[in-house]
């Protein structure tokens, strides 16, 4: 906990942010237009950022806003706008099949939430506050006996490279050269 806040204020903040996050999540689930959903998702992310802050993780809170709500969601909105699919699309929010398929995930949600609610967790006083230094220290510790997270840091770099190459392969115009690509002969995926 931030030492500056007392419990009550923390409770109020937490309750508010939690409700906001849930409301935004429900909004994402229920919104008709993807743009609305995107905005609501950004709202949920910002709420979570607040909760991170409350949970003594300021570094993550900042990262959440910068990377997630900022970069990733901007990309999403950008694509939605580029494809111009936001308004013309008249897909129904829900249809009968949505209702039928909702049972399983909702039941799962309920079971998970109830199970979590039954558990008793206590805050450990020895928990380290989530500021950049301790995180960076561990992330980049390279000596013997360290945990080697830097290896994963490198690995994530590779992952991102793969993602970019993959995205290029999937969407690059150059690869669509219809005169060279034989037309599909038969749709045999049935």
């Amino acid at each position, binding site marked *: 906990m931030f030492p500056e806040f007392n419990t009550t204020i923390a409770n109020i903040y937490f309750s508010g942010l939690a409700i906001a996050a849930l409301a935004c999540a429900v909004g994402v689930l229920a919104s008709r237009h993807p743009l609305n959903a995107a905005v609501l998702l950004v709202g949920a992310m910002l709420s979570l950022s607040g909760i991170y802050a409350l949970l003594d993780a300021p570094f993550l809170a900042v990262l959440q806003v910068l990377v997630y709500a900022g970069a990733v969601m901007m990309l999403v909105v950008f694509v939605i706008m580029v494809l111009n699919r936001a308004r013309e699309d008249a897909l129904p929010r829900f249809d009968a099949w949505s209702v039928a398929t909702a049972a399983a995930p909702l039941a799962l949600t309920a079971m998970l939430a109830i199970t979590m609610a039954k558990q008793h967790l206590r805050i450990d006083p020895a928990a380290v506050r989530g500021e950049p230094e301790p995180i960076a220290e561990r992330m980049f510790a390279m000596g013997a006996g360290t945990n080697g997270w830097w290896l994963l840091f490198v690995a994530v770099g590779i992952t991102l490279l793969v993602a970019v190459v993959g995205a290029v392969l*999937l969407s690059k115009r150059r690869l669509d050269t219809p005169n060279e690509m034989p037309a599909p002969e038969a749709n*045999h995926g049935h």
Partner: protein
Amino acid sequence: MDPVSLFPLLAPIVLVLAGGLVALAAEPFLEGQAKHRWLPWIAVAGMIAAGIVQVFAPVGHVHGMFANDEARRWLSLAVIAAAACSMGGIQQSLDRDRFPGGESYALAAMATVGVLGMIASLDAIAFFVSVETAALAIYALVGLRRNRPESNEALLKYFVMGAVFSAIFLYGTALLYGATGSTRFGAPVLDGRGTYALLGAALMAAGLLFKVGSVPFHAWAPDAYTGAPVAVTGLMGAIIKVGAFAGLGALWLGLASGTGLPVALDAAVTPSAAVRTHLLEPLSLLIVISAILSLVVGNFAALKQTSVRRLIGYSAIANAGYMALAFVLPASGEALDLRPLWLYAVGYAIATAGALTAVASLAGTEDTKDDLAGLHGRGRQMPLYGFALTVCLASFAGLPPTLGFLGKFSVLGQVVAHGGVFIALIGLIAAVAGAGAYLRLAVQLWAGTPRDEQPLAVGTQLLTRWGVTLAAVLLIGLTALPALLPQARPAPAAVVLPPAAPAAVVH
């Protein structure tokens, strides 16, 4: 398992990665068909080097993050072999179809890097990063035929389900972290947090069972296998499953050991009574039910398939079931031993890659002739591919003398030894149904002359020929030398001790 220095252990991964990166970097500098002529060789060169290095890679771990042991060595070698073989298939397909781009080879290499990382992982986060590396590369490869509707559909289904189950796996990781305070496989569960552990393990297992295509998380498999180019199907089917099972095995043995020490995949671990009762028994039950469903669904649904890719898709489901039977619990006080699973996985990876590479060579332009009618008599036209495909199919069917038989034999044999006589019987009867599907294809391959007399369109074949030959030779040759399996029953050990010497080869 002792700490060892970084580079020798990770050198295979680095070499494959290097091959992929060089191929990626060289891609813009090559024009047209030259891409297909040279880039796969660059990637395969990295793999060959990696394979050689992997043979001599030390047993041990780095930072408790990545590890190597005899099982991981064999799995890695199988994955490298399968990937190299599939690389030939991809080369053949793309060259034949004059695909205007060479990124695929780099992506295939990256996927291999990811799977090698999955196999080597000792940590759930490391595993997750690896699995995503592999998966993202495979997603792109599945969607390679960009203007084919079934390819698009396969990509959508695979990607969305994959993303959902990634999240589920990760949530499981988070819960397990909550339970143990660590993301390492094998960390001891803290007092009073058993529920988080069980739930987390179950969710992680669900994520992994999705990756292997086990029922009920299997629906993507037939579609993705069908939508992807045949050669990519081979790559995907062969390597992802091996990696996912390596993860499941590490999770399983880790839960059982609960010491916080790095887990060797070929270790025999005797769980404590508490862990056994609270964690392993429920988990084993879920996995085994899923396994039985898988092998029934996979084998029987395969019977009616006409497309080879779809057939292999259901075969993937069925084989996932057989492999997951390795998680039948032994009697109380006896050690868990996953070595049969690794043997099976090695055989499966090689057979899948070999089979689909051969089919890729026989399937004609745009893989349009990969169904039963299209393959009619192709074995007579191209005996090498026909022979290799037949061997691989026999391996799928579990017929000796192939590795597929030895895998089924040891996995189901262990099931029987653990008291699951009826499970084994169900497995064997389903296997006969599956064999019907595979052998129908094999028969089709050899019976009669091809319906169309025109020669098949083929691309550069050198790599393919070596690939399928390698697959066939390995499938038969390794049977005589089941080096993965122990020579005598290992002493049950609570603490994991890696075997000191390289696997003894039978005289």
